[in-house]
């Protein structure tokens, strides 16, 4: 019996085994989609897509749902999630933009300009940062940064000016963006650094030999060559930023308010809630069927958005592959 196991596998059976694992993965994903859509079905059947719109505060709507009966009437499912969707787009959008700028600059420095010693130390540090559990950022945020912002950046008069609508506590859009940026930058930097390092040295050297300065050579040849990798890294980071829940719920201010850019500086101190953080915050009320269904609807939206993100990243990359050898 043991002999049978020890015998080297034929290519054929190895192939079948690997195929089975891949199929299992696909089945798992499909089951997850079915599960989520089924859970969200009451909300979709009662509300259609109108729950994506705006009107009132999702916090109070979900709060009301928690007290509905176990057989809620269709009217119990009313929710307008726009402030959460807007909050998700706002935090993820800003965070991805900042992270892209930072990780491009950092990768270019590490690969093409840093002295060897700096390069050798920076690379493992960035990988380490990418592996830091996100909740640590949340802890530092809520214990250190939020009080600091409240003390030094938000003035008494600013708090007074909006006191009858929201409370400015220090937590809010700004600190959320900063933390999400911190969380996604290391992995983006690691991916872009790897891509830049795989660019043949001869390309950049060739560009320099044609009279370009080293930075122009990097931008015009290397960065151009790794555009597909940059897009892929951005897509991955965006998906993570959209779905980030725990850290956001820790520092976002705990109010599903839609920050208004017209408010100027206060905009960044206004509380915000994302789809993910709202799920975390309301999860304790999952016993109520209406809450249950609504949170599944949020989850379905998140799932759909991340699929849409990876699909669009793939589509954007397609025309860029034209000049690669293997296309």
């Amino acid at each position, binding site marked *: 019996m043991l002999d049978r196991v020890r015998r080297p596998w034929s290519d054929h059976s190895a192939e079948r085994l690997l195929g089975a694992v891949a199929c299992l993965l696909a089945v798992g994903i499909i089951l997850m989609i079915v599960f989520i859509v089924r859970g969200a079905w009451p909300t979709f059947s009662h509300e259609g897509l109108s729950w994506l719109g705006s009107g009132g505060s999702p916090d109070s709507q979900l709060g009301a749902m928690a007290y509905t009966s176990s057989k809620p009437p269709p009217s119990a499912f009313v929710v307008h999630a726009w402030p959460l969707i807007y909050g998700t787009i706002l935090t993820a959008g800003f965070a991805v933009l900042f992270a892209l700028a930072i990780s491009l600059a950092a990768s270019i420095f590490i690969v093409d300009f840093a*002295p*060897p010693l700096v390069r050798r130390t920076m690379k493992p540090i960035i990988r380490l940062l990418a592996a830091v559990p996100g909740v640590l950022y949340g802890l530092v945020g809520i214990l250190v940064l939020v009080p600091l912002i409240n003390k030094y950046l938000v003035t008494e008069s600013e708090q007074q000016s909006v006191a009858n609508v929201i409370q400015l506590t220090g937590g809010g859009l700004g600190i959320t963006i900063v933390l999400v940026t911190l969380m996604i930058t290391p992995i983006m930097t690691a991916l872009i650094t790897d891509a830049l390092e795989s660019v*043949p040295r*001869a*390309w950049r*050297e*060739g*560009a*320099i*030999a*044609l*009279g*370009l*300065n*080293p930075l*122009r050579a990097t931008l*015009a*040849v290397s960065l*151009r*060559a790794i555009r597909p990798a940059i897009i892929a890294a951005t897509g991955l980071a965006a998906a993570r930023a959209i779905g980030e829940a725990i850290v956001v719920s820790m520092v976002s201010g705990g109010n599903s308010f839609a920050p208004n850019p017209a408010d100027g500086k206060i905009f960044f101190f206004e509380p915000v809630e994302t789809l993910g953080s709202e799920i975390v915050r309301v999860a304790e009320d999952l016993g109520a069927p209406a809450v249950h269904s609504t949170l599944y609807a949020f989850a379905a939206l998140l799932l759909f958005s991340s699929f849409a993100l990876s699909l669009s990243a793939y589509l954007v990359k397609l025309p860029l592959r*034209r*000049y*690669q*050898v293997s*296309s």
Partner: protein
Amino acid sequence: MSARERLANARSGKLRPAARQSSENVALPIDNLELTADLMSVTPEKADSTTQVAGTAAHGRERLRLDDVSVFYGNTPAVKNVSLSISHGEVLALIGPSGCGKTTLLRTLNRLTELTPNASHSGQILLDGDEIDELVDTDLRSRISMVFQQPNPFPMSIFDNVGFALREQSRRRPRRPELEPLVNQALQRAGLYEEVRGDLGRSALRLSGGQQQRLCIARAIAQKPEILLMDEPCSALDPRSTAVIEDLIGQLSKDLTIVIVTHNLQQARRIADRVAFMYLGDLVEIGETEQIFTAPREQQTREYIAGVFG
């Protein structure tokens, strides 16, 4: 019959069977046609032009002058006290065994050694009388262009490759119609135009190795440099592509100064006006090609040519 003509004829004779043989291979029909046509038309003309200058010491005015140039990696000298001058329109070949410093010397001429962290050089290198260290490095490199050992086309279209330097060097990004004549001209001078015309949007990485190297030559000459450095440009190529590029070097040397590093002695003999033999960082001997190959002054040169070492 001059030695040069003999060699040229020997080469065409030697290569014809190869060309005929490979004409059965339909993969690269254009290369074959190109080659046989080139060999017939170019060879006599080239023999003429080179016999004219064989005896004279210089073609034209002096372009590049090296005075006591040494190049170091850290404290180790890779090139020791080299002095020589290069005139307008000549082809100078640097020969010598591996590690003799010929590539280092070549890369010093356009200050590409500066990319190597601990490289430095002493002595003077003058381009038209100006110390090259005092020129702006990017200006210097657009005047002294370079072709590398491995073809290194950028992952872009053929057009974008050839127009690359022109685009990047101009303050205002030139539009395609403005670039087109310059790109076409460069491709024509590099002998690639006929093969790629009509599809300049194709990826440069899909060309054959020989075509890629000619593309790199086109790219290097598009911004009209004064001097072209070539670092073993044929060592990664098959004999047919090599012959095409050697002919091209003959054509280009009419209005370009060319310094070429080569491992291949016979290639140096075929294409160079003068040859410099380097050994372990020293410039052992420099002279007219025929003199180096038939009557070398130094014992080391004689032995290297004869194949005693290297």
